[in-house]
Protein backbone atom coordinates (compact mmCIF):
# COMPACT_ATOMS: atom_id res chain seq x y z
CA UNK A 1 0.00 0.00 0.00
CA UNK A 2 2.89 2.29 0.90
CA UNK A 3 4.33 1.55 -2.49
CA UNK A 4 1.09 2.51 -4.26
CA UNK A 5 0.82 5.79 -2.37
CA UNK A 6 4.24 6.79 -3.62
CA UNK A 7 3.27 6.28 -7.24
CA UNK A 8 2.41 9.29 -9.34
CA UNK A 9 -1.03 9.70 -10.88
CA UNK A 10 0.43 9.01 -14.31
CA UNK A 11 1.99 5.76 -13.08
CA UNK A 12 -1.34 4.75 -11.59
CA UNK A 13 -3.05 5.45 -14.93
CA UNK A 14 -0.55 3.18 -16.67
CA UNK A 15 -1.11 0.49 -14.03
CA UNK A 16 -4.90 0.81 -14.27
CA UNK A 17 -4.75 0.23 -18.00
CA UNK A 18 -3.07 -3.10 -17.26
CA UNK A 19 -5.19 -3.99 -14.25
CA UNK A 20 -8.47 -2.20 -13.51
CA UNK A 21 -8.12 -2.80 -9.75
CA UNK A 22 -5.55 0.01 -9.58
CA UNK A 23 -8.30 2.45 -10.52
CA UNK A 24 -9.47 2.19 -6.91
CA UNK A 25 -6.36 4.11 -5.80
CA UNK A 26 -6.93 6.87 -8.34
CA UNK A 27 -10.57 7.16 -7.23
CA UNK A 28 -9.49 7.37 -3.59
CA UNK A 29 -6.99 10.08 -4.42
CA UNK A 30 -9.53 12.25 -6.14
CA UNK A 31 -12.97 11.41 -4.78
CA UNK A 32 -12.90 14.04 -2.00
CA UNK A 33 -11.40 16.76 -4.18
CA UNK A 34 -13.85 16.17 -7.02
CA UNK A 35 -16.78 15.73 -4.62
CA UNK A 36 -15.99 19.15 -3.14
CA UNK A 37 -15.49 20.71 -6.56
CA UNK A 38 -18.83 19.41 -7.87
CA UNK A 39 -20.59 20.63 -4.70
CA UNK A 40 -19.04 24.06 -5.07
CA UNK A 41 -19.81 24.49 -8.70
CA UNK A 42 -23.27 22.94 -8.81
CA UNK A 43 -24.69 23.40 -5.29
CA UNK A 44 -26.23 19.93 -5.56
CA UNK A 45 -27.02 17.98 -2.43
CA UNK A 46 -24.72 15.22 -1.25
CA UNK A 47 -26.65 12.31 -2.79
CA UNK A 48 -26.82 13.97 -6.19
CA UNK A 49 -23.13 14.90 -6.05
CA UNK A 50 -22.34 11.27 -5.33
CA UNK A 51 -24.33 10.11 -8.37
CA UNK A 52 -22.64 12.69 -10.58
CA UNK A 53 -19.24 11.74 -9.20
CA UNK A 54 -19.83 8.07 -9.96
CA UNK A 55 -20.63 8.93 -13.58
CA UNK A 56 -17.57 11.13 -13.78
CA UNK A 57 -15.23 8.42 -12.51
CA UNK A 58 -16.72 5.94 -14.97
CA UNK A 59 -16.10 8.52 -17.72
CA UNK A 60 -12.54 9.02 -16.53
CA UNK A 61 -12.01 5.25 -16.57
CA UNK A 62 -13.46 4.91 -20.08
CA UNK A 63 -11.23 7.71 -21.37
CA UNK A 64 -8.00 6.67 -19.67
CA UNK A 65 -6.38 5.87 -23.03
CA UNK A 66 -7.06 9.41 -24.14
CA UNK A 67 -5.25 10.92 -21.15
CA UNK A 68 -2.66 13.33 -22.46
CA UNK A 69 0.45 12.79 -20.37
CA UNK A 70 1.58 16.35 -21.11
CA UNK A 71 -1.16 17.45 -18.72
CA UNK A 72 -1.34 16.81 -15.01
CA UNK A 73 -3.79 14.01 -14.28
CA UNK A 74 -5.57 16.29 -11.82
CA UNK A 75 -6.14 18.92 -14.55
CA UNK A 76 -7.50 16.24 -16.87
CA UNK A 77 -9.80 14.83 -14.16
CA UNK A 78 -11.02 18.33 -13.27
CA UNK A 79 -11.63 19.02 -16.96
CA UNK A 80 -13.84 15.96 -17.33
CA UNK A 81 -15.65 16.90 -14.11
CA UNK A 82 -16.07 20.49 -15.22
CA UNK A 83 -17.40 19.47 -18.65
CA UNK A 84 -19.83 17.02 -17.12
CA UNK A 85 -21.14 19.51 -14.55
CA UNK A 86 -21.35 22.45 -16.96
CA UNK A 87 -23.06 20.45 -19.71
CA UNK A 88 -25.69 19.41 -17.17
CA UNK A 89 -25.68 22.69 -15.27
CA UNK A 90 -29.27 23.65 -16.10
CA UNK A 91 -30.48 20.21 -15.16
CA UNK A 92 -28.59 20.39 -11.87
CA UNK A 93 -29.80 23.92 -11.15
CA UNK A 94 -33.39 22.66 -11.11
CA UNK A 95 -32.43 19.98 -8.61
CA UNK A 96 -30.87 22.31 -6.02
CA UNK A 97 -32.82 22.08 -2.80
CA UNK A 98 -30.34 23.41 -0.27
CA UNK A 99 -27.93 26.20 -1.03
CA UNK A 100 -25.02 25.24 1.07
CA UNK A 101 -21.71 26.50 -0.10
CA UNK A 102 -18.61 25.11 1.44
CA UNK A 103 -16.67 28.35 1.75
CA UNK A 104 -13.83 27.58 4.06
CA UNK A 105 -11.39 30.13 5.42
CA UNK A 106 -9.13 29.52 2.43
CA UNK A 107 -11.43 31.28 0.03
CA UNK A 108 -11.51 34.41 2.12
CA UNK A 109 -7.77 34.29 2.67
CA UNK A 110 -6.93 33.64 -0.98
CA UNK A 111 -9.21 36.23 -2.49
CA UNK A 112 -8.40 38.85 0.14
CA UNK A 113 -4.67 38.42 -0.61
CA UNK A 114 -5.47 39.69 -4.07
CA UNK A 115 -7.75 42.52 -2.96
CA UNK A 116 -6.95 45.51 -0.80
CA UNK A 117 -6.90 45.25 2.99
CA UNK A 118 -10.01 47.31 3.63
CA UNK A 119 -12.06 45.21 1.30
CA UNK A 120 -10.43 42.09 2.70
CA UNK A 121 -11.54 43.11 6.18
CA UNK A 122 -15.07 43.57 4.92
CA UNK A 123 -14.83 40.17 3.33
CA UNK A 124 -13.84 38.51 6.57
CA UNK A 125 -16.74 40.21 8.27
CA UNK A 126 -19.06 38.99 5.61
CA UNK A 127 -17.81 35.43 5.37
CA UNK A 128 -21.31 34.03 5.47
CA UNK A 129 -22.37 36.18 2.59
CA UNK A 130 -19.72 34.77 0.28
CA UNK A 131 -21.85 31.71 -0.39
CA UNK A 132 -24.70 33.91 -1.53
CA UNK A 133 -22.46 36.11 -3.64
CA UNK A 134 -20.92 33.13 -5.40
CA UNK A 135 -24.34 31.75 -5.98
CA UNK A 136 -25.43 34.98 -7.65
CA UNK A 137 -22.37 35.43 -9.83
CA UNK A 138 -22.37 34.31 -13.47
CA UNK A 139 -21.23 30.69 -13.86
CA UNK A 140 -18.26 31.68 -16.09
CA UNK A 141 -16.93 33.86 -13.24
CA UNK A 142 -17.98 31.46 -10.52
CA UNK A 143 -16.01 28.57 -12.04
CA UNK A 144 -12.74 30.54 -12.30
CA UNK A 145 -13.14 31.93 -8.79
CA UNK A 146 -13.71 28.45 -7.43
CA UNK A 147 -10.78 26.98 -9.32
CA UNK A 148 -8.44 29.81 -8.38
CA UNK A 149 -9.38 30.55 -4.78
CA UNK A 150 -11.00 27.37 -3.51
CA UNK A 151 -9.25 24.67 -5.48
CA UNK A 152 -6.07 26.78 -5.49
CA UNK A 153 -5.19 25.93 -9.08
CA UNK A 154 -2.52 27.77 -11.03
CA UNK A 155 -3.38 29.76 -14.18
CA UNK A 156 -1.87 27.00 -16.32
CA UNK A 157 -3.98 24.36 -14.57
CA UNK A 158 -7.15 26.44 -14.95
CA UNK A 159 -6.24 26.94 -18.61
CA UNK A 160 -5.93 23.15 -19.03
CA UNK A 161 -9.17 22.49 -17.15
CA UNK A 162 -11.29 25.05 -18.99
CA UNK A 163 -9.44 24.68 -22.34
CA UNK A 164 -8.84 28.40 -22.63
CA UNK A 165 -5.60 30.35 -23.12
CA UNK A 166 -3.87 31.54 -19.95
CA UNK A 167 -4.37 35.16 -21.01
CA UNK A 168 -8.12 34.61 -21.21
CA UNK A 169 -8.06 32.97 -17.78
CA UNK A 170 -6.24 35.98 -16.30
CA UNK A 171 -8.82 38.34 -17.82
CA UNK A 172 -11.68 36.16 -16.60
CA UNK A 173 -10.28 36.08 -13.06
CA UNK A 174 -9.88 39.86 -13.02
CA UNK A 175 -13.41 40.40 -14.23
CA UNK A 176 -14.70 37.77 -11.83
CA UNK A 177 -13.04 39.52 -8.89
CA UNK A 178 -14.60 42.85 -9.90
CA UNK A 179 -17.98 41.22 -10.37
CA UNK A 180 -17.61 39.48 -7.02
CA UNK A 181 -16.89 42.79 -5.29
CA UNK A 182 -19.77 44.52 -7.08
CA UNK A 183 -22.27 41.90 -5.93
CA UNK A 184 -20.74 41.85 -2.47
CA UNK A 185 -21.10 45.62 -2.10
CA UNK A 186 -24.65 45.46 -3.39
CA UNK A 187 -25.44 42.77 -0.83
CA UNK A 188 -23.75 44.83 1.87
CA UNK A 189 -25.79 47.93 1.02
CA UNK A 190 -28.94 45.89 0.96
CA UNK A 191 -28.15 44.48 4.39
CA UNK A 192 -27.37 47.96 5.74
CA UNK A 193 -30.66 49.35 4.43
CA UNK A 194 -32.53 46.41 5.89
CA UNK A 195 -30.75 46.86 9.22
CA UNK A 196 -31.50 50.64 9.29
CA UNK A 197 -35.17 50.03 8.48
CA UNK A 198 -35.42 47.55 11.34
CA UNK A 199 -33.70 50.00 13.72
CA UNK A 200 -36.10 52.78 12.69
CA UNK A 201 -39.13 50.58 13.25
CA UNK A 202 -37.88 49.52 16.66
Amino acid at each position, binding site marked *: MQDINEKTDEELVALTLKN*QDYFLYLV*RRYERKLFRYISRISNLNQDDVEDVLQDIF*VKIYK*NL*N*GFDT*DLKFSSWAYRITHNEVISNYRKYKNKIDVISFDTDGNFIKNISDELDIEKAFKLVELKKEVDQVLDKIDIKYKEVLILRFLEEKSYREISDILRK*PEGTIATLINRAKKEFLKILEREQNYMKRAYNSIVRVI
Partner: protein
Amino acid sequence: MEKINKLAEKIISRIKTEEIKPTSRWRFVVKDSFFWLAFILSVVIGAMAVSVILNTLLNNDWDLSLQLSGSLFQFVVITLPYFWLILLGGFIIIAYLNIKHTKKAYRCDLKIIVGGVILISFLLGLTFYNLGLASSLDKKFIQKLPPRFHQMIDSRLEVWQEPQRGFLIGEIQNFSGNSLELRDFKGRFWQIALELEAEELNFIEPLLRTNEKIRLMGSPNPEKCEQCFSAIMVRPLNLPKGDMIHEQFREVFPQDLQGKIIKRESIIKIQE
Protein backbone atom coordinates in the same frame (compact mmCIF):
# COMPACT_ATOMS: atom_id res chain seq x y z
CA MET B 1 -18.18 11.89 4.31
CA GLU B 2 -18.72 8.32 5.33
CA LYS B 3 -20.65 7.80 2.14
CA ILE B 4 -17.73 9.02 0.12
CA ASN B 5 -15.49 6.43 1.71
CA LYS B 6 -17.64 3.77 0.12
CA LEU B 7 -17.81 5.56 -3.21
CA ALA B 8 -14.53 4.16 -4.54
CA GLU B 9 -15.69 0.59 -3.91
CA LYS B 10 -19.05 1.37 -5.52
CA ILE B 11 -17.38 2.74 -8.64
CA ILE B 12 -15.05 -0.24 -8.99
CA SER B 13 -17.96 -2.58 -8.46
CA ARG B 14 -20.00 -0.74 -11.11
CA ILE B 15 -17.10 -0.92 -13.58
CA LYS B 16 -16.81 -4.65 -12.99
CA THR B 17 -20.55 -5.38 -13.04
CA GLU B 18 -21.21 -3.37 -16.17
CA GLU B 19 -17.98 -4.72 -17.70
CA ILE B 20 -16.87 -1.22 -18.59
CA LYS B 21 -13.61 -1.13 -20.53
CA PRO B 22 -11.39 1.85 -21.38
CA THR B 23 -11.92 3.04 -24.96
CA SER B 24 -9.09 1.83 -27.21
CA ARG B 25 -6.16 4.14 -27.71
CA TRP B 26 -6.50 3.99 -31.53
CA ARG B 27 -9.92 5.64 -31.28
CA PHE B 28 -8.35 8.68 -29.64
CA VAL B 29 -5.53 8.65 -32.16
CA VAL B 30 -8.03 8.45 -35.05
CA LYS B 31 -10.13 11.25 -33.54
CA ASP B 32 -7.13 13.53 -33.11
CA SER B 33 -5.77 12.66 -36.56
CA PHE B 34 -9.19 13.37 -38.06
CA PHE B 35 -9.15 16.93 -36.73
CA TRP B 36 -5.59 17.48 -37.96
CA LEU B 37 -6.39 16.04 -41.40
CA ALA B 38 -9.58 18.08 -41.65
CA PHE B 39 -7.57 21.15 -40.63
CA ILE B 40 -4.88 20.49 -43.27
CA LEU B 41 -7.53 19.81 -45.92
CA SER B 42 -9.39 23.02 -45.05
CA VAL B 43 -6.17 25.04 -45.27
CA VAL B 44 -5.30 23.44 -48.64
CA ILE B 45 -8.78 24.19 -50.05
CA GLY B 46 -8.55 27.71 -48.62
CA ALA B 47 -5.14 28.09 -50.27
CA MET B 48 -6.62 26.93 -53.60
CA ALA B 49 -9.27 29.62 -53.20
CA VAL B 50 -6.50 32.16 -52.50
CA SER B 51 -4.64 31.08 -55.65
CA VAL B 52 -7.81 31.47 -57.78
CA ILE B 53 -8.50 34.86 -56.16
CA LEU B 54 -4.96 35.95 -57.01
CA ASN B 55 -5.32 34.57 -60.51
CA THR B 56 -8.61 36.41 -60.96
CA LEU B 57 -7.33 39.69 -59.59
CA LEU B 58 -3.97 39.67 -61.33
CA ASN B 59 -5.40 38.52 -64.66
CA ASN B 60 -8.53 40.62 -64.53
CA ASP B 61 -9.16 42.80 -67.57
CA TRP B 62 -7.94 45.91 -65.79
CA ASP B 63 -6.90 47.39 -69.15
CA LEU B 64 -10.50 47.17 -70.33
CA SER B 65 -12.17 48.18 -67.08
CA LEU B 66 -13.58 51.43 -68.47
CA GLN B 67 -14.94 49.77 -71.60
CA LEU B 68 -16.43 46.86 -69.70
CA SER B 69 -18.01 48.66 -66.75
CA GLY B 70 -17.81 52.40 -67.21
CA SER B 71 -15.67 53.00 -64.13
CA LEU B 72 -12.86 51.28 -62.30
CA PHE B 73 -14.89 51.15 -59.07
CA GLN B 74 -17.85 49.51 -60.78
CA PHE B 75 -15.49 47.09 -62.51
CA VAL B 76 -13.99 46.09 -59.15
CA VAL B 77 -17.45 45.64 -57.59
CA ILE B 78 -18.67 43.53 -60.52
CA THR B 79 -15.60 41.38 -60.97
CA LEU B 80 -14.53 40.65 -57.38
CA PRO B 81 -14.32 36.86 -56.98
CA TYR B 82 -17.12 36.65 -54.39
CA PHE B 83 -17.58 32.89 -54.71
CA TRP B 84 -13.92 32.23 -53.91
CA LEU B 85 -13.83 34.84 -51.17
CA ILE B 86 -16.85 33.21 -49.47
CA LEU B 87 -15.27 29.77 -49.99
CA LEU B 88 -12.02 31.03 -48.45
CA GLY B 89 -13.88 32.52 -45.47
CA GLY B 90 -15.81 29.26 -45.00
CA PHE B 91 -12.70 27.12 -45.05
CA ILE B 92 -10.84 29.45 -42.68
CA ILE B 93 -13.71 28.96 -40.21
CA ILE B 94 -13.69 25.16 -40.77
CA ALA B 95 -9.90 25.09 -40.32
CA TYR B 96 -10.23 27.09 -37.10
CA LEU B 97 -12.96 24.78 -35.74
CA ASN B 98 -10.83 21.74 -36.49
CA ILE B 99 -7.62 23.05 -34.98
CA LYS B 100 -9.61 24.15 -31.93
CA HIS B 101 -10.52 20.50 -31.31
CA THR B 102 -6.92 19.30 -31.33
CA LYS B 103 -5.21 18.60 -28.01
CA LYS B 104 -3.18 21.74 -27.35
CA ALA B 105 -4.72 24.43 -29.55
CA TYR B 106 -6.71 25.93 -26.66
CA ARG B 107 -3.46 27.24 -25.21
CA CYS B 108 -3.11 29.63 -28.17
CA ASP B 109 -5.00 32.85 -28.49
CA LEU B 110 -7.90 32.97 -30.96
CA LYS B 111 -6.25 35.83 -32.88
CA ILE B 112 -3.03 33.84 -33.27
CA ILE B 113 -4.88 30.77 -34.55
CA VAL B 114 -7.07 32.69 -37.04
CA GLY B 115 -4.13 34.87 -38.11
CA GLY B 116 -1.97 31.78 -38.55
CA VAL B 117 -4.62 29.99 -40.62
CA ILE B 118 -5.02 33.07 -42.88
CA LEU B 119 -1.24 33.44 -43.24
CA ILE B 120 -0.69 29.75 -44.08
CA SER B 121 -3.59 29.83 -46.58
CA PHE B 122 -2.18 32.95 -48.20
CA LEU B 123 1.40 31.67 -48.45
CA LEU B 124 0.28 28.28 -49.73
CA GLY B 125 -2.12 30.00 -52.14
CA LEU B 126 0.70 32.17 -53.44
CA THR B 127 2.80 29.03 -53.98
CA PHE B 128 -0.10 27.33 -55.81
CA TYR B 129 -0.53 30.41 -57.95
CA ASN B 130 3.16 30.51 -58.84
CA LEU B 131 3.06 26.81 -59.70
CA GLY B 132 0.20 27.55 -62.10
CA LEU B 133 -2.30 25.47 -60.14
CA ALA B 134 -4.92 28.23 -60.16
CA SER B 135 -5.33 28.27 -63.93
CA SER B 136 -5.18 24.49 -64.22
CA LEU B 137 -7.74 24.17 -61.41
CA ASP B 138 -9.90 26.55 -63.35
CA LYS B 139 -9.43 24.61 -66.57
CA LYS B 140 -9.75 21.10 -65.19
CA PHE B 141 -12.56 21.71 -62.77
CA ILE B 142 -14.55 24.87 -63.35
CA GLN B 143 -14.65 24.81 -67.11
CA LYS B 144 -16.05 21.28 -66.97
CA LEU B 145 -19.07 22.59 -65.12
CA PRO B 146 -22.15 23.52 -67.16
CA PRO B 147 -21.90 27.16 -68.33
CA ARG B 148 -24.75 28.31 -66.05
CA PHE B 149 -22.45 27.69 -63.05
CA HIS B 150 -19.56 29.62 -64.56
CA GLN B 151 -20.92 33.04 -63.73
CA MET B 152 -21.65 32.02 -60.14
CA ILE B 153 -18.01 30.97 -59.71
CA ASP B 154 -16.42 33.66 -61.85
CA SER B 155 -18.23 36.96 -61.52
CA ARG B 156 -15.99 38.48 -64.21
CA LEU B 157 -18.00 36.62 -66.82
CA GLU B 158 -21.09 38.77 -66.34
CA VAL B 159 -19.58 41.72 -68.17
CA TRP B 160 -18.70 39.52 -71.16
CA GLN B 161 -22.23 38.32 -71.79
CA GLU B 162 -23.57 41.41 -73.47
CA PRO B 163 -23.18 41.00 -77.23
CA GLN B 164 -25.27 44.10 -77.91
CA ARG B 165 -22.66 46.14 -76.01
CA GLY B 166 -19.90 44.37 -77.93
CA PHE B 167 -18.82 41.75 -75.40
CA LEU B 168 -19.30 38.06 -76.08
CA ILE B 169 -18.13 34.88 -74.39
CA GLY B 170 -18.56 31.28 -75.41
CA GLU B 171 -17.11 27.97 -76.55
CA ILE B 172 -15.53 27.49 -79.95
CA GLN B 173 -17.46 24.97 -82.05
CA ASN B 174 -15.19 25.17 -85.08
CA PHE B 175 -12.55 27.47 -86.46
CA SER B 176 -11.30 28.15 -89.97
CA GLY B 177 -9.24 31.03 -91.33
CA ASN B 178 -10.76 34.30 -90.21
CA SER B 179 -14.02 32.95 -88.91
CA LEU B 180 -15.27 30.70 -86.21
CA GLU B 181 -18.50 29.34 -84.81
CA LEU B 182 -19.15 30.02 -81.15
CA ARG B 183 -21.79 28.83 -78.71
CA ASP B 184 -22.41 31.40 -75.97
CA PHE B 185 -23.23 30.51 -72.35
CA LYS B 186 -26.94 30.83 -73.08
CA GLY B 187 -26.67 28.15 -75.78
CA ARG B 188 -26.99 30.47 -78.81
CA PHE B 189 -24.71 29.90 -81.83
CA TRP B 190 -22.79 32.83 -83.27
CA GLN B 191 -20.90 33.26 -86.56
CA ILE B 192 -17.78 35.22 -85.72
CA ALA B 193 -15.73 37.19 -88.22
CA LEU B 194 -12.25 37.87 -86.88
CA GLU B 195 -11.14 41.35 -87.82
CA LEU B 196 -7.66 41.03 -86.38
CA GLU B 197 -4.30 42.18 -87.66
CA ALA B 198 -2.08 39.38 -88.99
CA GLU B 199 0.18 39.71 -85.95
CA GLU B 200 -2.76 39.46 -83.55
CA LEU B 201 -4.19 36.48 -85.38
CA ASN B 202 -0.87 34.63 -85.34
CA PHE B 203 -0.60 35.21 -81.63
CA ILE B 204 -4.10 34.07 -80.79
CA GLU B 205 -4.38 31.24 -83.33
CA PRO B 206 -2.90 28.48 -81.11
CA LEU B 207 -5.66 29.17 -78.59
CA LEU B 208 -8.45 28.86 -81.15
CA ARG B 209 -9.30 25.21 -80.77
CA THR B 210 -12.65 23.43 -80.62
CA ASN B 211 -14.19 23.46 -77.11
CA GLU B 212 -11.86 26.26 -76.02
CA LYS B 213 -13.68 29.03 -74.18
CA ILE B 214 -12.90 32.53 -75.38
CA ARG B 215 -13.94 36.16 -74.86
CA LEU B 216 -14.53 38.47 -77.77
CA MET B 217 -14.76 42.20 -78.11
CA GLY B 218 -16.35 43.70 -81.19
CA SER B 219 -19.83 44.44 -82.40
CA PRO B 220 -22.86 42.50 -83.56
CA ASN B 221 -23.32 42.44 -87.32
CA PRO B 222 -27.09 42.16 -87.86
CA GLU B 223 -26.80 43.22 -91.53
CA LYS B 224 -24.94 39.99 -92.28
CA CYS B 225 -27.03 37.68 -90.09
CA GLU B 226 -28.96 37.79 -86.81
CA GLN B 227 -26.24 35.97 -84.83
CA CYS B 228 -23.21 37.42 -86.59
CA PHE B 229 -20.48 39.18 -84.67
CA SER B 230 -17.33 40.97 -85.78
CA ALA B 231 -14.48 40.57 -83.31
CA ILE B 232 -11.63 43.05 -83.04
CA MET B 233 -10.16 41.33 -79.99
CA VAL B 234 -9.99 37.71 -78.83
CA ARG B 235 -8.88 36.50 -75.41
CA PRO B 236 -9.00 33.04 -73.90
CA LEU B 237 -11.49 32.69 -71.02
CA ASN B 238 -8.62 32.28 -68.61
CA LEU B 239 -5.16 33.47 -69.34
CA PRO B 240 -2.47 31.01 -68.44
CA LYS B 241 -0.50 31.72 -65.30
CA GLY B 242 0.66 35.11 -64.18
CA ASP B 243 1.34 38.50 -65.62
CA MET B 244 3.63 37.32 -68.38
CA ILE B 245 0.88 36.52 -70.86
CA HIS B 246 -0.84 39.76 -70.00
CA GLU B 247 2.30 41.62 -70.96
CA GLN B 248 2.37 39.69 -74.23
CA PHE B 249 -1.24 40.67 -74.81
CA ARG B 250 -0.39 44.29 -74.23
CA GLU B 251 2.46 44.00 -76.70
CA VAL B 252 0.26 42.40 -79.32
CA PHE B 253 -2.72 44.64 -78.60
CA PRO B 254 -0.97 47.96 -78.21
CA GLN B 255 -2.39 51.45 -78.02
CA ASP B 256 -4.40 51.15 -81.19
CA LEU B 257 -6.74 48.75 -79.32
CA GLN B 258 -8.07 51.79 -77.57
CA GLY B 259 -8.55 53.40 -80.98
CA LYS B 260 -10.43 50.31 -82.17
CA ILE B 261 -12.64 50.33 -79.12
CA ILE B 262 -13.44 53.98 -79.53
CA LYS B 263 -14.17 53.35 -83.20
CA ARG B 264 -16.41 50.41 -82.29
CA GLU B 265 -18.26 52.43 -79.68
CA SER B 266 -18.91 55.13 -82.24
CA ILE B 267 -20.27 52.44 -84.58
CA ILE B 268 -22.60 51.19 -81.84
CA LYS B 269 -23.72 54.75 -81.13
CA ILE B 270 -24.39 55.32 -84.82
CA GLN B 271 -26.33 52.02 -84.92
CA GLU B 272 -28.35 53.10 -81.91
